[in-house]
């Protein structure tokens, strides 16, 4: 029997190529292409009064300059608002090139195409733009105050206002024996993949076809958007995603201005054109995330059970709203985590500011929601003097309550219904892993030695595998090799490996015979994209279904040829054979030959499939409901998301003098259903935790009052290197299979990052004895907090503003 591949920690098939420098990333392609550079706004908010390109025209090697005036048809319209929502009251998106107003530093105003990037940048420098500066709106507080407006026709700077409520939260809080209020803040961070954005386009004037390569998380989305913007039939546009050097959310946004301008220029100039974003451009013209202010009111009983929870938050969506309300809606719904408050009300404003747009970054609104909920639970535990884990357990949804309907609408417009999960079991695993019950003694002993240590705990639930669908195509070639395609893209998740594992099991073949292609619209034109921890769930399931379809056909064709019943056949190591009689067998390649009736025999193998040899002469060679060839195409469209979950604990030590925050241990219990490849899942968790450490302790995007990003470089925007992450991340898995898909899987891509702000705030609060209510936190921040709390009895101070309890 071929051993089962799903569940094995198989080494990644992607690796050898990438390890020897043979990866093909966007900027490795099109070495002879003309290059495009962008003139970007130096002002956060200004009217454009004039653009003078005269001096730029003298640059040798210049091929073209485009401003808004050169755009026509759909290209002259604003870029799309990709995900509309009824709560959006003023949806604004930017033009591919600014028309008459700029709304953030970095907004594209003009593009230059030249023989190379150096010359293009020389020309950009010579374009003179005249501006009339307008007052900028920077930060959530300024947006709320609305003394100035980002968009004149968006009153109060409000892009959207949304309320969801289950039960009467206000009444439940008012009637509760205990009440608390919290004010929390979380700052901006960003995906910052090591490879920035990039686009290469090639126009074939003979066939009137456009081929483009783009570093994206959705090739089909880019294809549709570019076809619409350039007025091309979809069939004339091909989009190929090469190796992508990380996405983490930012590359799901499309079309970027450059994604329509590069093909526009390639078509106009009749030669390939490329744009490769530089690092500063990525900081000021891609996307950010995370920034929110939150106000929480909670009412609870003496056991810590939440009777009513009311959350009001203000979300900074930046200058425009191309990705709709996905981030704040996820915050507002996933905030609930594994808990079931008696009543819940959430209200948010999504606000415009004169800063870079805010779109999903790994976690996509969940880190903020988990932070709000977990800070609240710590506050309740502190108020009642209860163990923090006990308060959490008291509020858990129980396994017997699955599927659990929260009565809310999730980001996909579907009811928020958890499919499965065993939260008490996960918590028990985490407490055992970190040694929760021994903690008070450990902490007391450390304190006696003058050391400050803290233990943090945070739990989350993550909706993954969101629809609408993905597809898979599986084809057996006459060589016996298996070609697999799915439309969504890869940015380092090991899809080629994981999907090959699935197909190997479904077909009974070796992984070595399988080749997986992702993100190429020529191979699979129907797809959504890689985001929301959805690839394994959606494409993995679709590929499994397609493989099952092929398997049925293999058995049917082989049964005819071997004169056996399909039920009596099995596929083992690429051979179809009669069970119990392994001598009666046929290679899959031969089955593929037989599946396609031929008129022409081009080699010895194909002779076997000519119409004089195969088939029943009373039936057509390709019978009704049949197709030539050995291939299957199927789709997986989930009724709704599947919900993964996890719980993290971190132990930190804070230096009494320098306030340096050191990670002593980091523990993860993770439940993403059936594991396809534990190696890949653990890699994803490691990566998420590393980004979480960054988000909690280092990363913040600092704007000055004028809307200038002050730290738009890797020198000034601090991210974790190997020196900043824990030396080991201790992981334990729980596998609660999802009932919603054929493989029982749930997504894992974002898991590691989701509880990080919450778990570090919890641990640092525990170490210091005062509440941490703003994240990220640097040693300077902590030092300042200590000064502010000096003289108070820190170890008895509550996290929250207290109302008198009855």
């Amino acid at each position: 029997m071929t051993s089962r591949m799903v569940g094995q920690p198989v080494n990644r098939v992607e690796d050898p190529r990438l390890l020897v420098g043979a990866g093909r990333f966007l900027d490795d392609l099109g070495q002879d292409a003309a290059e495009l550079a962008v003139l970007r706004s130096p002002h956060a908010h200004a009217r454009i009064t004039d653009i003078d390109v005269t001096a730029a025209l003298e640059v040798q090697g210049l091929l073209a300059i485009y401003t808004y005036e050169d755009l026509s048809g759909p290209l002259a319209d604003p870029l799309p608002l990709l995900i509309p929502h009824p709560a959006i009251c003023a949806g604004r998106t930017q033009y591919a090139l600014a028309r008459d107003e700029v709304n953030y530093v970095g907004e594209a105003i003009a593009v230059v195409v030249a023989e190379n990037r150096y010359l293009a940048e020389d020309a950009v420098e010579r374009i003179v733009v005249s501006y009339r500066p307008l007052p900028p709106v920077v930060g959530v507080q300024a947006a709320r105050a609305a003394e100035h407006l980002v968009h004149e026709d968006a009153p109060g700077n409000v892009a959207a206002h949304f309320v969801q409520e289950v039960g009467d939260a206000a009444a439940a809080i008012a009637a509760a024996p205990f009440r608390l209020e919290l004010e929390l803040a979380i700052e901006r961070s960003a995906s910052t993949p090591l490879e920035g954005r990039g686009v290469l386009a090639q126009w074939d004037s003979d066939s009137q076809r456009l081929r483009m390569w783009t570093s994206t998380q959705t090739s089909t989305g880019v294809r549709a958007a570019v076809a619409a913007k350039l007025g091309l039939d979809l069939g004339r546009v091909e989009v190929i995603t090469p190796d992508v050097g990380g996405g983490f959310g930012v590359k799901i946004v499309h079309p970027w201005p450059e994604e329509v301008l590069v093909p526009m220029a390639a078509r106009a100039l009749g030669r390939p054109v490329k744009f490769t974003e530089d690092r500063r451009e990525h900081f000021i013209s891609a996307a950010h995330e995370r920034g929110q202010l939150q106000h929480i009111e909670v009412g609870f009983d003496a056991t810590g059970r939440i009777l009513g929870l009311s959350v009001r938050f203000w979300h900074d969506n930046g200058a425009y709203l191309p990705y709709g309300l996905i981030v704040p809606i996820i915050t507002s719904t996933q905030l609930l985590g594994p808990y079931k408050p008696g009543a819940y009300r959430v209200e948010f404003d999504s606000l415009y500011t004169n800063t870079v747009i805010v779109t999903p970054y790994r976690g996509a609104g969940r880190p903020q929601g988990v932070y709000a909920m977990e800070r609240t639970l710590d506050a309740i535990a502190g108020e009642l003097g209860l163990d923090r884990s006990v308060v959490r357990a008291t509020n858990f949804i129980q396994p017997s309550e699955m599927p659990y309907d929260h009565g809310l609408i999730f980001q996909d417009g579907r009811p928020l219904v958890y499919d499965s999960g065993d939260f008490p079991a996960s918590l028990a695993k985490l407490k055992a892993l970190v040694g929760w019950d021994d903690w008070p003694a450990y902490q007391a002993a450390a304190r006696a030695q003058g050391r400050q240590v803290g233990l943090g705990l945070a739990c989350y639930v993550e909706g993954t595998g969101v629809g609408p669908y993905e597809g898979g195509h599986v084809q057996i070639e006459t060589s016996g090799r298996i070609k697999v395609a799915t439309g969504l893209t890869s940015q380092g998740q090991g899809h080629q490996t994981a999907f090959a594992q699935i197909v190997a099991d479904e077909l009974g073949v070796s992984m070595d015979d399988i080749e997986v292609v992702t993100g190429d619209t020529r191979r699979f034109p129907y797809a959504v994209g890689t985001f929301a921890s959805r690839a394994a769930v959606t494409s993995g399931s679709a590929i499994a279904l397609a493989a099952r379809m092929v398997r049925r056909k293999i058995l049917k064709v082989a049964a005819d040829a071997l004169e056996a019943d399909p039920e009596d056949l099995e596929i083992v190591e690429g051979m179809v054979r009669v069970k119990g009689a392994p001598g009666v067998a046929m290679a899959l390649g031969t089955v593929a030959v037989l599946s396609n009736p031929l008129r022409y025999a081009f080699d010895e193998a194909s002779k076997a499939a000519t119409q004089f040899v195969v088939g029943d002469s009373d039936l057509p060679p390709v019978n009704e409901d049949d197709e030539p060839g050995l291939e299957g195409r199927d789709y997986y469209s989930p009724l709704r998301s599947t919900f993964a979950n996890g719980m993290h604990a971190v132990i930190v030590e804070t230096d009494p003098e320098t306030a340096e925050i050191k990670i002593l241990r980091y523990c993860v219990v993770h439940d993403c259903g059936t594991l396809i490849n534990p190696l890949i899942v653990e890699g994803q968790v490691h990566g998420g935790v590393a980004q979480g450490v960054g988000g909690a302790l280092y990363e913040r995007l600092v704007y000055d009052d004028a809307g200038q990003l002050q730290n738009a470089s890797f020198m000034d925007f601090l991210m974790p290197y190997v020196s900043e992450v824990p030396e080991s991340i201790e992981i334990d898995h729980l596998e609660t299979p999802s009932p919603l898909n054929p493989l029982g899987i749930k997504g894992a891509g974002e898991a590691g990052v989701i509880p990080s702000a919450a778990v570090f705030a919890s641990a640092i609060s525990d170490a210091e004895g005062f509440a941490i209510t703003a994240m990220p936190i640097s040693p300077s921040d902590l030092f300042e907090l200590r000064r502010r709390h000096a003289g108070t009895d820190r170890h008895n101070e509550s996290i929250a503003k207290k109302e008198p309890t009855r």
Partner: protein
Amino acid sequence: MTSSSLSSSFTVTVNGEPQLLDLDNRTTLLDALREHLDLTGAKKGCDHGQCGACTVLLDGRRVNSCLVLAVATQGHSITTIEGLGTAERLHPIQQAFIDHDGLQCGYCTPGQICSAVGALDEADRGWPSAATADVGAEKITLDDSEIRERMSGNLCRCGAYVNILAAINAVSP
């Protein structure tokens, strides 16, 4: 070397092969490799020497190739990721990255590999780092803290650090 005011013609050995280049004096080593020698393994992550994705070995020592002017490498020897191993015959560090899952998207990986090779050589020569307890030692054993210190110039945004550490540990003598 022949020179005009703007460009220079010079010879440099790259992966064992002498290369004659005629480049604008402002061309960085990274751009020379990628755009003029078709060696695209070294990557541009920031172009400011902050991410390490462009790390190559210059006479065996690691450098950020985005911070080196190509013309300054005249007469020197460069080893890039393409010169360390092939898919069929991997360098031990490359194999360790597979065995320990030390990469995800692969964009930083050529720089990580070159940096690790350089770090192992530096330790073998007894060059101390900020994490070295005995700076007079003839050879330095790379433990976790040494590796973390010596690899702290290579950013991996996918966050594969735990496994990168394990991979280098596995090869370190």
